[in-house]
């Protein structure tokens, strides 16, 4: 399990290669890439600033990735989340899961994203045509995370 929080951009080919390195038993990689959109809630976005809670971020992401590895048979998990100033079309987050088969890899990747969206301490502030404002949490994200709760 690899977790990184960084200002720098990341390269997909490089990161997926590292994830699979020396794992010839891996048959499936599922990757999610989150990107800065130039519109949000109807306003055009010129810039985004990502704030986080450094002491907690790594711990929260590692815990989410660990839960995924306990629930699904997957071999490797990578989470990279950027912080600082970002522009439209910039990459924000990469979640990549490698395993023998695709089903568990899809589930683990979507689970990590849904939990990251509701439990990892990041906050977005947008510069829009209407001024600067903090992005509102979406109730659809809470609903997405709630789907995974075990009865």
């Amino acid at each position, binding site marked *: 399990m690899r977790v990184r929080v960084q200002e720098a951009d990341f390269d997909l080919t490089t990161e997926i290669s590292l994830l699979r390195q020396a794992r010839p038993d891996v048959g499936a990689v599922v990757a999610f890439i989150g990107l800065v959109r130039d519109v949000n809630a109807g306003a055009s976005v010129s810039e985004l600033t990502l704030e*986080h809670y450094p002491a907690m971020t790594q711990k929260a992401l590692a815990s989410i990735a660990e839960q995924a590895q306990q629930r699904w048979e997957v071999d490797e998990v990578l989470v990279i989340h950027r912080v600082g100033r970002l522009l439209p079309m910039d990459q924000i987050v990469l979640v990549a899961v490698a395993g023998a088969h695709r089903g568990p890899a899809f589930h683990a990747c979507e689970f990590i994203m849904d939990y990251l*969206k509701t439990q990892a301490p990041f906050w977005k502030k947008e510069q829009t045509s209407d001024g600067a404002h*903090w992005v509102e949490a979406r109730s659809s994200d809470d609903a997405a995370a709630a789907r995974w709760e075990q009865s």
Partner: protein
Amino acid sequence: MLLNVLYFARLRENLGLAQEQITLQSTRSCVSDLLDYLRARGPQWQATLAAEKNLRVAVNQDLARFETALKDGDEVALFPPVTGG
């Protein structure tokens, strides 16, 4: 008990404060007691911390509940619902 209290995002901006040390008199307190203490500081604190549905808390870097018990030396972070990813 002595608490290290952190504020993030909209809370940090509204309160004009990122971090402070707070001494609660009681030896048996939970997050809600800390919130009551903070709300008593004035209208800006009252308003910013009023809506619990827009408030999240972490104790020692783990997400916690308003009824989570606090102990001396804890790091308590208050912030709005997260919006990363």
